[in-house]
């Protein structure tokens, strides 16, 4: 610790250079935080998944529909606690660019199924009393400035409404929040019974079921039992845990994780060079000073640790600032992005990984110059200064 002053003075020697190096490290960690948040948004569904929930969909693909009658049959399967249907509605509000997810659901069973979402009790009552009522997530209501009592017309390319107009008119009766960080509140939900009654075609079908089971350990067995129940019927099912379902979705986007990791690797490799080069320059310039330190009795290990400490300090300054900025920017951007990239936030585990990376970067960038400094032969280092 008593060498701290020496280390700090050395960094102050070439303020501009130290600042530039700190900035380049800062940029690397800003990107690290930012890409981490994007990755979190894309793959976060897998972590959010509740191990006691299964998704049951048509075996051929999720676009294929299932009969509503399956609900009763699935409920009877041992291990199943509750069930809630959903259907992809693909509602368009004014312009297809205003994309958000919209689904008909059964109000009570839906919010029971997702304790991660909270709707005030009074609003739930209002919803159950209003056939054309809809509840919207906080992020969605913020995006369009919707308030309770607003009317929202939606057109669905899949589900035209029966009757004179194909447009569906909904009344916003509730706004729900997430009780868990990163959980999506960008969706629009309305009532299944109203949907089924008012749609032109496809009556008696739904998109997929969410099923709660009693014990996550039985997940595979219950899924198998459900699939067996409908084997050889016109609509065979594929049941899988929510996590596996989300994972399957993520994998469809291609190897996001691999791409993000590859980019980060390129970024860090570059920054490593920049930081390493700075440290090397700084050691080269100081050959005679390091020689003096050794001459007056500093050991090789002392010199090695002083150089490494400088490198670590630069990495820490840049890294902490970079992660800090990433946190701020992500937090500031999250509301605006909530409907495109729900779950866009910087998880604590990324910060921990970032801290680890700071240490690695500092060590690796400093090690070669530090070894050079350590191996300096005193007599020669002093001769060079003369």
């Amino acid at each position, binding site marked *: 610790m*008593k060498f701290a002053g*020496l280390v700090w003075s*050395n960094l102050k020697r070439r303020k501009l250079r130290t600042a530039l190096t700190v900035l380049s490290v800062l940029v690397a960690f800003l990107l690290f935080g930012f890409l981490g948040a994007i990755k979190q948004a894309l793959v976060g569904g897998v972590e959010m998944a509740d191990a006691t929930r299964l998704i049951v969909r048509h075996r051929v693909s999720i676009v294929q529909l299932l009969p509503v009658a399956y609900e009763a049959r699935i409920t009877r399967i041992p291990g199943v606690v509750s069930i809630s249907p959903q259907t992809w509605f693909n509602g368009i509000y004014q312009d297809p660019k205003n994309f958000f997810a919209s689904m008909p659901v059964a109000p009570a069973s839906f919010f029971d199924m997702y304790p991660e979402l909270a709707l005030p009790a009074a609003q739930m009552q209002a919803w159950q009393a209003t056939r054309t009522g809809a509840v919207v997530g906080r992020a969605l209501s913020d995006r369009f400035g919707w308030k309770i009592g607003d009317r929202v017309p939606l057109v669905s390319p899949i589900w035209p409404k029966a009757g004179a107009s194909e447009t569906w008119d909904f009344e916003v009766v509730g706004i729900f929040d997430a009780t868990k960080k990163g959980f999506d509140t960008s969706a629009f939900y309305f009532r299944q019974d109203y949907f089924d009654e008012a749609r032109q075609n496809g009556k008696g079908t739904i998109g997929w079921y969410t099923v709660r089971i009693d014990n996550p350990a039985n997940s595979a067995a219950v899924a198998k039992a459900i699939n067996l129940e409908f084997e050889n019927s016109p609509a065979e099912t594929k049941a899988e845990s929510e996590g596996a379902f989300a994972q399957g979705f993520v994998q469809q986007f291609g190897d996001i994780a691999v791409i993000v990791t590859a980019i980060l690797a390129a970024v860090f490799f570059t920054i490593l060079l920049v930081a390493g080069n700075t440290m090397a320059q700084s050691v080269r310039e100081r050959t005679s000073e390091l020689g003096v330190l050794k*001459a*007056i009795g*500093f050991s*090789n290990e002392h010199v090695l640790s002083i150089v490494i400490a400088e490198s670590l300090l630069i990495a820490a300054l840049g890294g902490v600032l970079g992660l800090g900025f990433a946190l701020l920017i992500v937090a500031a951007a999250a509301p605006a992005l909530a409907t495109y990239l729900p779950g866009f936030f910087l998880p604590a585990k990324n910060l921990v990984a970032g801290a680890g990376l700071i240490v690695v970067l500092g060590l690796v960038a400093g090690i070669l110059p530090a070894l050079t400094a350590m191996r300096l032969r005193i007599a020669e280092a002093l001769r060079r200064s003369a």
Partner: protein
Amino acid sequence: MSNDNNEVLVDVQGVDRVFRRGSEEIHVLQKLDLQVRRGEFLALMGPSGSGKSTLLNLIGGLDRPSSGTVAIGGERIDGLNDRQLAAWRARHVGLVFQFYNLLPVLNAQRNVELPLLLTSLSAAQRRDHAVAALEIVGLKDRNSSFPTQLSGGEQQRVGIARAIVTDPTILLCDEPTGDLDQKSGDEILSLLQALNREQGKTIIMVTHDPHASARASRTVYLNKGRLLAEKPE
């Protein structure tokens, strides 16, 4: 340690130092013997390239002889490894360089404190010692000046303060006045002389300047790898 004035403090015996430059071998020191007694102020002279700095480095434990022995205060240092040598230097040697070699990023007091970082002294004790050393060299009021703000003579005083702050067994000076004008050089020499007379410091000083060697209690000449008591013609 005894106060016996005749005690041999520096004992160099049969030392060779061979440098290799490519395939060529340069025998800088050959079978060299030198004894310096405690309390002596020895001037080491000789033409440029004769090996004065090389010898001083061997005595200061900055380098090891190719063969022969170097003992300081009865302790053999030619066989010590790097780490042991570093610790030995920190305890026993004070070095003064021609170009001062102060750390430009540290102010005078911090420069003087540097060797104390290797001791177990507290921060307050280090400061007190440094202030005391600066007082001895007559720079009491320049504690917070940085090297660039000091004249050459003043920088060399800081260098001397740094060399004596640990109260070393021996003070080694390599052309301490080589870069100074006559007046500043004289002041430095007076300072060294005072350290030798009043505090009994053993000093070995390399110099080209006859004025400087005149201040020493004894002068030896290095020529073609050997020591002579008389200036060779």
